Protein backbone atom coordinates (compact mmCIF):
# COMPACT_ATOMS: atom_id res chain seq x y z
CA UNK A 1 0.00 0.00 0.00
CA UNK A 2 1.27 3.46 -0.81
CA UNK A 3 4.81 4.13 -1.95
CA UNK A 4 7.55 1.62 -2.59
CA UNK A 5 11.00 2.29 -1.18
CA UNK A 6 12.16 4.02 -4.33
CA UNK A 7 9.25 6.44 -4.17
CA UNK A 8 9.98 7.16 -0.50
CA UNK A 9 13.55 7.97 -1.52
CA UNK A 10 12.32 10.16 -4.34
CA UNK A 11 10.00 12.12 -2.05
CA UNK A 12 12.79 12.71 0.48
CA UNK A 13 15.14 13.86 -2.30
CA UNK A 14 12.91 16.94 -2.59
CA UNK A 15 14.02 18.03 0.88
CA UNK A 16 17.61 18.47 -0.28
CA UNK A 17 18.77 22.02 -0.91
CA UNK A 18 21.61 23.38 -2.99
CA UNK A 19 24.87 23.25 -1.05
CA UNK A 20 23.63 20.74 1.52
CA UNK A 21 26.03 18.31 3.12
CA UNK A 22 23.98 15.16 3.61
CA UNK A 23 24.50 11.87 5.44
CA UNK A 24 22.37 9.03 4.12
CA UNK A 25 21.93 5.93 6.24
CA UNK A 26 21.84 2.35 5.05
CA UNK A 27 18.71 1.10 3.26
CA UNK A 28 16.09 3.45 1.82
CA UNK A 29 18.18 6.57 2.60
CA UNK A 30 21.01 5.33 0.35
CA UNK A 31 18.57 5.27 -2.58
CA UNK A 32 18.01 9.02 -2.27
CA UNK A 33 21.34 9.67 -4.00
CA UNK A 34 19.76 8.48 -7.25
CA UNK A 35 17.04 11.15 -7.16
CA UNK A 36 18.98 14.31 -6.34
CA UNK A 37 17.95 17.10 -8.71
CA UNK A 38 20.55 17.83 -11.34
CA UNK A 39 20.30 21.60 -10.88
CA UNK A 40 21.50 21.55 -7.27
CA UNK A 41 24.80 20.58 -5.75
CA UNK A 42 24.60 18.24 -2.79
CA UNK A 43 27.67 16.73 -1.13
CA UNK A 44 27.27 13.32 0.47
CA UNK A 45 29.11 12.52 3.70
CA UNK A 46 30.05 8.96 4.51
CA UNK A 47 30.84 8.71 8.20
CA UNK A 48 33.76 6.34 7.68
CA UNK A 49 35.70 9.34 6.39
CA UNK A 50 34.60 10.84 3.10
CA UNK A 51 32.90 13.97 1.82
CA UNK A 52 31.90 13.98 -1.83
CA UNK A 53 30.87 10.36 -2.22
CA UNK A 54 30.12 9.39 -5.80
CA UNK A 55 28.23 6.48 -7.35
CA UNK A 56 29.28 2.83 -7.14
CA UNK A 57 32.32 2.13 -9.32
CA UNK A 58 32.49 0.38 -12.64
CA UNK A 59 33.81 -3.16 -12.31
CA UNK A 60 37.29 -2.16 -13.41
CA UNK A 61 37.45 0.71 -10.92
CA UNK A 62 36.84 -1.20 -7.70
CA UNK A 63 39.21 -0.03 -4.96
CA UNK A 64 39.30 -1.89 -1.62
CA UNK A 65 40.50 1.32 0.09
CA UNK A 66 37.38 3.15 -1.01
CA UNK A 67 34.19 2.07 0.73
CA UNK A 68 31.15 3.76 2.21
CA UNK A 69 29.69 3.41 5.70
CA UNK A 70 27.70 0.41 4.46
CA UNK A 71 31.04 -1.22 3.49
CA UNK A 72 30.16 -1.04 -0.21
CA UNK A 73 32.76 -0.07 -2.78
CA UNK A 74 32.25 3.51 -3.95
CA UNK A 75 33.85 6.33 -5.91
CA UNK A 76 34.63 9.94 -5.08
CA UNK A 77 33.52 13.03 -6.95
CA UNK A 78 35.61 16.02 -7.90
CA UNK A 79 36.15 18.19 -4.83
CA UNK A 80 35.92 15.33 -2.37
CA UNK A 81 37.94 15.05 0.83
CA UNK A 82 39.08 12.08 2.91
CA UNK A 83 39.61 12.16 6.67
CA UNK A 84 39.67 10.11 9.85
CA UNK A 85 36.67 8.80 11.78
CA UNK A 86 37.37 11.33 14.55
CA UNK A 87 37.22 14.21 12.08
CA UNK A 88 34.11 12.68 10.51
CA UNK A 89 32.16 12.53 13.75
CA UNK A 90 33.59 15.90 14.70
CA UNK A 91 31.81 17.48 11.75
CA UNK A 92 28.66 15.53 12.60
CA UNK A 93 28.65 16.63 16.26
CA UNK A 94 29.52 20.17 15.19
CA UNK A 95 26.27 20.26 13.23
CA UNK A 96 27.97 20.90 9.91
CA UNK A 97 26.06 18.06 8.24
CA UNK A 98 22.88 19.84 7.15
CA UNK A 99 20.65 16.83 6.72
CA UNK A 100 20.69 13.26 7.98
CA UNK A 101 18.34 10.59 6.69
CA UNK A 102 17.99 7.40 8.70
CA UNK A 103 15.89 4.29 8.80
CA UNK A 104 14.02 3.45 12.01
CA UNK A 105 12.16 0.66 13.75
CA UNK A 106 10.05 3.09 15.81
CA UNK A 107 9.55 6.83 16.09
CA UNK A 108 7.63 8.46 18.92
CA UNK A 109 5.56 11.62 18.80
CA UNK A 110 8.19 13.22 21.03
CA UNK A 111 10.70 12.70 18.24
CA UNK A 112 12.45 9.78 19.93
CA UNK A 113 13.86 7.16 17.62
CA UNK A 114 14.60 3.45 18.13
CA UNK A 115 16.63 1.81 15.42
CA UNK A 116 19.45 -0.23 16.88
CA UNK A 117 18.33 -3.04 19.13
CA UNK A 118 15.57 -5.61 19.48
CA UNK A 119 15.64 -7.32 22.88
CA UNK A 120 16.11 -11.05 22.50
CA UNK A 121 17.73 -10.74 19.08
CA UNK A 122 21.44 -10.59 18.35
CA UNK A 123 22.48 -6.96 18.78
CA UNK A 124 24.80 -5.83 16.03
CA UNK A 125 25.48 -2.40 17.45
CA UNK A 126 24.47 1.19 16.97
CA UNK A 127 27.28 2.11 14.59
CA UNK A 128 27.16 5.86 14.10
CA UNK A 129 23.41 6.22 14.61
CA UNK A 130 23.53 7.52 18.19
CA UNK A 131 26.10 10.15 17.28
CA UNK A 132 24.09 11.24 14.26
CA UNK A 133 20.75 11.56 16.03
CA UNK A 134 22.30 13.31 19.03
CA UNK A 135 23.88 16.06 16.96
CA UNK A 136 22.24 16.48 13.57
CA UNK A 137 20.05 19.56 13.36
CA UNK A 138 17.82 18.19 10.66
CA UNK A 139 16.95 14.51 10.67
CA UNK A 140 14.44 12.78 8.44
CA UNK A 141 13.37 9.22 9.10
CA UNK A 142 12.66 7.06 6.06
CA UNK A 143 10.67 3.93 6.88
CA UNK A 144 7.56 1.89 6.26
CA UNK A 145 4.58 3.14 8.26
CA UNK A 146 3.96 -0.26 9.85
CA UNK A 147 6.14 -3.25 10.64
CA UNK A 148 5.89 -6.74 9.18
CA UNK A 149 3.20 -7.65 11.68
CA UNK A 150 1.18 -4.62 10.57
CA UNK A 151 1.81 -2.70 13.79
CA UNK A 152 2.33 1.05 13.62
CA UNK A 153 5.91 2.29 13.83
CA UNK A 154 4.73 5.81 14.72
CA UNK A 155 4.04 5.52 18.42
CA UNK A 156 3.10 7.50 21.49
CA UNK A 157 6.22 6.10 23.08
CA UNK A 158 8.96 3.89 21.70
CA UNK A 159 8.82 0.34 23.04
CA UNK A 160 12.29 -0.67 21.83
CA UNK A 161 15.54 0.62 23.35
CA UNK A 162 15.95 4.11 22.00
CA UNK A 163 18.76 5.52 19.89
CA UNK A 164 18.10 9.17 20.70
CA UNK A 165 15.60 11.48 22.36
CA UNK A 166 13.61 14.36 20.85
CA UNK A 167 15.62 14.43 17.68
CA UNK A 168 13.34 13.54 14.77
CA UNK A 169 11.53 16.38 13.00
CA UNK A 170 10.14 14.62 9.95
CA UNK A 171 9.13 11.10 8.95
CA UNK A 172 8.53 9.98 5.40
CA UNK A 173 6.80 6.62 5.07
CA UNK A 174 5.08 4.63 2.37
CA UNK A 175 1.85 6.36 3.42
CA UNK A 176 2.65 9.89 4.46
CA UNK A 177 4.92 12.80 5.20
CA UNK A 178 4.58 13.56 8.88
CA UNK A 179 6.26 16.33 10.86
CA UNK A 180 6.80 16.19 14.59
CA UNK A 181 5.74 19.37 16.35
CA UNK A 182 4.97 20.01 20.01
CA UNK A 183 5.04 16.36 20.98
CA UNK A 184 2.61 15.39 18.24
CA UNK A 185 2.67 13.89 14.77
CA UNK A 186 1.34 16.30 12.15
CA UNK A 187 0.16 14.87 8.83
CA UNK A 188 1.47 17.08 6.04
CA UNK A 189 1.14 14.92 2.94
CA UNK A 190 -0.49 11.65 2.03
CA UNK A 191 0.77 9.24 -0.60
CA UNK A 192 -1.21 9.10 -3.86
CA UNK A 193 -4.13 6.72 -3.45
CA UNK A 194 -3.81 6.61 0.34
CA UNK A 195 -6.62 8.14 2.35
CA UNK A 196 -6.19 10.16 5.47
CA UNK A 197 -8.29 7.59 7.29
CA UNK A 198 -5.83 4.86 6.35
CA UNK A 199 -2.98 6.94 7.74
CA UNK A 200 -4.86 7.68 10.96
CA UNK A 201 -5.54 3.96 11.26
CA UNK A 202 -1.87 3.06 10.77
CA UNK A 203 -0.59 5.64 13.28
CA UNK A 204 -0.63 4.69 16.93
CA UNK A 205 0.65 8.04 18.20
CA UNK A 206 -1.43 11.22 18.32
CA UNK A 207 -1.84 12.47 14.77
CA UNK A 208 -2.96 15.97 13.99
CA UNK A 209 -4.10 16.59 10.44
CA UNK A 210 -2.49 19.71 9.07
CA UNK A 211 -4.92 22.19 7.57
CA UNK A 212 -2.80 22.28 4.47
CA UNK A 213 -2.54 18.52 4.09
CA UNK A 214 -2.05 17.56 0.45
CA UNK A 215 -0.95 14.76 -1.81
CA UNK A 216 2.77 14.08 -2.12
CA UNK A 217 4.49 15.46 -5.17
CA UNK A 218 6.44 12.57 -6.67
CA UNK A 219 7.10 14.18 -10.04
Amino acid at each position, binding site marked *: MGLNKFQIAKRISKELKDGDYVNLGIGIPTLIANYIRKDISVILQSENGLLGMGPFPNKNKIDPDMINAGKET*ITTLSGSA*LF*SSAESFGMIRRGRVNLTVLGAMEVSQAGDIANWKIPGKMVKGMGGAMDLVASAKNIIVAMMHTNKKGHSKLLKKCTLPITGLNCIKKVVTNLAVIDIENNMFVLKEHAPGVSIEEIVEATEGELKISESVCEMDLS
Partner: protein
Amino acid sequence: MNKLYKNGLDAIFDIKDHSTIMLGGFGLCGIPENLISALVTKKTKGLTCISNNAGVDDFGIGLLLKTRQVKKMISSYVGENAEFEKQLLSGELEVELIPQGTLAERCRAAGAGIPGFYTPAGVGTEVAEGKEVKVFNGKKHLLELAFESDFAFVKAWKGDALGNLIYRGTARNFNPMMAAAGKITIVEVEELVPVGELDPNIIHTPSIYVDRIFKGENYEKRIEKITTQ
Protein backbone atom coordinates in the same frame (compact mmCIF):
# COMPACT_ATOMS: atom_id res chain seq x y z
CA MET B 1 67.28 4.25 17.41
CA ASN B 2 65.69 1.55 15.34
CA LYS B 3 61.93 1.25 14.93
CA LEU B 4 62.16 -1.08 11.96
CA TYR B 5 61.03 -4.68 12.40
CA LYS B 6 61.16 -7.60 10.00
CA ASN B 7 57.52 -8.65 10.07
CA GLY B 8 54.42 -8.88 12.21
CA LEU B 9 55.66 -11.70 14.42
CA ASP B 10 58.93 -9.87 15.02
CA ALA B 11 57.05 -6.68 15.89
CA ILE B 12 54.78 -8.29 18.49
CA PHE B 13 57.59 -10.21 20.22
CA ASP B 14 56.64 -8.92 23.68
CA ILE B 15 52.86 -9.16 23.51
CA LYS B 16 51.32 -11.04 26.42
CA ASP B 17 48.07 -12.87 27.01
CA HIS B 18 45.27 -10.62 28.28
CA SER B 19 46.60 -7.53 26.53
CA THR B 20 44.29 -4.77 25.33
CA ILE B 21 44.82 -3.98 21.67
CA MET B 22 43.40 -1.27 19.46
CA LEU B 23 43.05 -2.34 15.84
CA GLY B 24 42.49 0.15 13.03
CA GLY B 25 40.03 -0.41 10.24
CA PHE B 26 36.41 0.07 9.25
CA GLY B 27 34.83 -3.19 8.15
CA LEU B 28 37.71 -4.92 6.39
CA CYS B 29 39.07 -1.65 5.03
CA GLY B 30 42.41 -0.51 6.45
CA ILE B 31 42.82 -3.41 8.87
CA PRO B 32 46.27 -4.57 10.05
CA GLU B 33 46.21 -7.89 8.19
CA ASN B 34 49.78 -8.89 8.94
CA LEU B 35 49.53 -8.13 12.64
CA ILE B 36 46.31 -10.10 12.96
CA SER B 37 47.99 -13.08 11.26
CA ALA B 38 50.95 -12.73 13.60
CA LEU B 39 48.61 -12.86 16.61
CA VAL B 40 47.03 -16.03 15.25
CA THR B 41 50.47 -17.60 14.83
CA LYS B 42 51.57 -16.46 18.28
CA LYS B 43 48.34 -17.81 19.83
CA THR B 44 48.12 -14.86 22.22
CA LYS B 45 45.01 -15.41 24.34
CA GLY B 46 42.48 -13.50 26.40
CA LEU B 47 42.70 -10.39 24.28
CA THR B 48 40.54 -7.32 24.64
CA CYS B 49 40.17 -5.77 21.20
CA ILE B 50 39.10 -2.19 20.57
CA SER B 51 38.07 -1.98 16.95
CA ASN B 52 35.08 -0.49 15.15
CA ASN B 53 34.07 -3.90 13.77
CA ALA B 54 34.90 -7.54 14.43
CA GLY B 55 35.72 -8.70 10.92
CA VAL B 56 33.97 -11.52 9.10
CA ASP B 57 34.08 -15.24 9.85
CA ASP B 58 37.30 -15.94 8.01
CA PHE B 59 39.01 -12.57 7.79
CA GLY B 60 40.10 -9.68 9.96
CA ILE B 61 39.40 -10.01 13.67
CA GLY B 62 37.16 -12.95 12.74
CA LEU B 63 40.36 -15.00 12.50
CA LEU B 64 41.10 -14.31 16.17
CA LEU B 65 37.54 -15.18 17.15
CA LYS B 66 37.75 -18.52 15.39
CA THR B 67 40.83 -19.44 17.43
CA ARG B 68 39.14 -18.12 20.59
CA GLN B 69 41.91 -15.63 21.31
CA VAL B 70 39.49 -12.78 22.04
CA LYS B 71 37.93 -12.36 25.46
CA LYS B 72 36.23 -9.04 24.83
CA MET B 73 35.33 -6.86 21.85
CA ILE B 74 34.81 -3.13 22.18
CA SER B 75 33.15 -2.04 18.93
CA SER B 76 30.35 0.01 17.43
CA TYR B 77 29.04 -2.63 15.04
CA VAL B 78 29.63 -6.36 15.05
CA GLY B 79 27.30 -7.86 12.44
CA GLU B 80 28.28 -10.16 9.59
CA ASN B 81 29.97 -12.74 11.75
CA ALA B 82 28.34 -16.05 12.68
CA GLU B 83 31.23 -17.21 14.88
CA PHE B 84 30.99 -13.97 16.79
CA GLU B 85 27.29 -14.46 17.36
CA LYS B 86 27.79 -18.03 18.55
CA GLN B 87 30.45 -17.10 21.10
CA LEU B 88 28.45 -14.12 22.26
CA LEU B 89 25.31 -16.17 22.85
CA SER B 90 27.28 -18.91 24.61
CA GLY B 91 28.81 -16.34 26.94
CA GLU B 92 32.37 -17.06 25.83
CA LEU B 93 32.78 -13.59 24.40
CA GLU B 94 32.11 -10.26 26.08
CA VAL B 95 30.99 -7.34 23.96
CA GLU B 96 30.83 -3.66 24.75
CA LEU B 97 29.01 -1.62 22.13
CA ILE B 98 29.90 2.05 21.82
CA PRO B 99 28.56 4.71 19.46
CA GLN B 100 30.97 5.04 16.57
CA GLY B 101 31.72 8.72 17.07
CA THR B 102 32.33 8.15 20.76
CA LEU B 103 34.61 5.23 19.92
CA ALA B 104 36.59 7.44 17.53
CA GLU B 105 36.76 10.29 20.04
CA ARG B 106 37.79 8.05 22.93
CA CYS B 107 40.71 6.92 20.78
CA ARG B 108 41.48 10.48 19.80
CA ALA B 109 41.31 11.61 23.45
CA ALA B 110 43.75 8.86 24.46
CA GLY B 111 46.16 9.99 21.78
CA ALA B 112 45.84 13.64 22.76
CA GLY B 113 46.27 13.23 26.52
CA ILE B 114 42.66 14.19 27.23
CA PRO B 115 41.39 11.80 29.91
CA GLY B 116 37.71 12.63 29.49
CA PHE B 117 35.31 14.67 27.37
CA TYR B 118 31.60 15.30 26.98
CA THR B 119 29.47 14.20 24.05
CA PRO B 120 25.73 14.28 23.39
CA ALA B 121 25.76 10.82 21.77
CA GLY B 122 23.82 8.25 23.76
CA VAL B 123 22.05 10.59 26.17
CA GLY B 124 18.87 8.94 27.38
CA THR B 125 19.87 5.55 25.99
CA GLU B 126 21.38 2.40 27.48
CA VAL B 127 24.78 3.83 26.63
CA ALA B 128 24.27 6.50 29.29
CA GLU B 129 23.90 4.03 32.14
CA GLY B 130 26.36 4.75 34.93
CA LYS B 131 27.84 7.76 33.19
CA GLU B 132 28.09 11.30 34.50
CA VAL B 133 25.64 13.66 32.78
CA LYS B 134 26.42 17.35 32.49
CA VAL B 135 24.42 20.07 30.81
CA PHE B 136 26.17 22.42 28.39
CA ASN B 137 24.16 25.11 26.57
CA GLY B 138 20.96 23.56 27.85
CA LYS B 139 21.71 20.15 26.37
CA LYS B 140 22.67 16.99 28.23
CA HIS B 141 26.04 15.39 27.53
CA LEU B 142 27.78 12.25 28.76
CA LEU B 143 31.27 12.09 30.21
CA GLU B 144 33.28 9.62 28.15
CA LEU B 145 36.80 8.47 28.99
CA ALA B 146 39.93 8.00 26.93
CA PHE B 147 40.68 4.38 26.14
CA GLU B 148 43.61 2.65 27.79
CA SER B 149 45.40 0.13 25.61
CA ASP B 150 48.64 -1.79 25.70
CA PHE B 151 49.14 -1.87 21.95
CA ALA B 152 47.78 -0.15 18.87
CA PHE B 153 47.89 -2.12 15.63
CA VAL B 154 47.84 0.26 12.72
CA LYS B 155 47.73 -0.19 8.97
CA ALA B 156 49.07 2.61 6.79
CA TRP B 157 49.68 2.99 3.10
CA LYS B 158 53.17 4.50 3.09
CA GLY B 159 55.57 4.95 5.93
CA ASP B 160 59.23 5.62 6.59
CA ALA B 161 61.65 4.06 9.07
CA LEU B 162 61.10 6.91 11.54
CA GLY B 163 57.38 6.13 11.61
CA ASN B 164 55.90 8.95 9.54
CA LEU B 165 52.70 7.64 7.96
CA ILE B 166 50.24 8.34 5.16
CA TYR B 167 46.95 6.49 4.84
CA ARG B 168 44.99 5.99 1.63
CA GLY B 169 41.31 6.62 0.91
CA THR B 170 38.79 5.47 3.47
CA ALA B 171 41.38 3.04 4.84
CA ARG B 172 42.40 5.92 7.10
CA ASN B 173 39.34 5.66 9.40
CA PHE B 174 40.41 4.80 12.99
CA ASN B 175 44.10 4.29 12.23
CA PRO B 176 45.46 7.81 12.96
CA MET B 177 43.78 8.11 16.38
CA MET B 178 44.84 4.62 17.39
CA ALA B 179 48.40 5.31 16.23
CA ALA B 180 48.49 8.24 18.64
CA ALA B 181 46.71 6.39 21.42
CA GLY B 182 48.70 3.17 21.73
CA LYS B 183 50.99 2.69 24.67
CA ILE B 184 53.08 0.78 22.13
CA THR B 185 52.12 1.56 18.56
CA ILE B 186 52.98 -1.00 15.90
CA VAL B 187 52.46 -0.13 12.27
CA GLU B 188 52.38 -2.20 9.11
CA VAL B 189 52.68 -0.41 5.80
CA GLU B 190 52.15 -1.42 2.22
CA GLU B 191 55.12 0.62 1.14
CA LEU B 192 58.18 1.44 3.19
CA VAL B 193 59.77 4.52 1.67
CA PRO B 194 63.17 6.14 2.39
CA VAL B 195 63.19 8.75 5.16
CA GLY B 196 62.71 12.14 3.53
CA GLU B 197 60.54 10.89 0.69
CA LEU B 198 57.23 11.78 2.34
CA ASP B 199 56.30 15.46 2.04
CA PRO B 200 56.30 16.73 5.68
CA ASN B 201 53.26 18.87 4.88
CA ILE B 202 50.98 15.93 4.08
CA ILE B 203 51.97 13.37 6.71
CA HIS B 204 48.91 12.03 8.50
CA THR B 205 50.69 10.48 11.50
CA PRO B 206 53.96 12.09 12.64
CA SER B 207 56.73 9.66 13.62
CA ILE B 208 56.58 10.51 17.33
CA TYR B 209 53.61 8.20 17.88
CA VAL B 210 55.13 5.15 16.23
CA ASP B 211 57.22 2.65 18.18
CA ARG B 212 57.60 -0.11 15.61
CA ILE B 213 57.08 -0.33 11.88
CA PHE B 214 57.41 -3.03 9.23
CA LYS B 215 56.51 -3.66 5.64
CA GLY B 216 53.46 -5.90 5.44
CA GLU B 217 53.30 -8.78 2.98
CA ASN B 218 50.64 -10.44 0.85
CA TYR B 219 47.88 -7.94 1.38
CA GLU B 220 44.57 -9.48 0.50
CA LYS B 221 42.54 -6.31 1.12
CA ARG B 222 39.35 -8.26 0.98
CA ILE B 223 36.21 -6.34 0.05
CA GLU B 224 33.13 -7.06 2.15
CA LYS B 225 30.53 -5.82 -0.32
CA ILE B 226 31.65 -5.40 -3.89
CA THR B 227 29.07 -3.08 -5.36
CA THR B 228 29.22 -1.80 -8.89
CA GLN B 229 27.07 0.33 -11.13
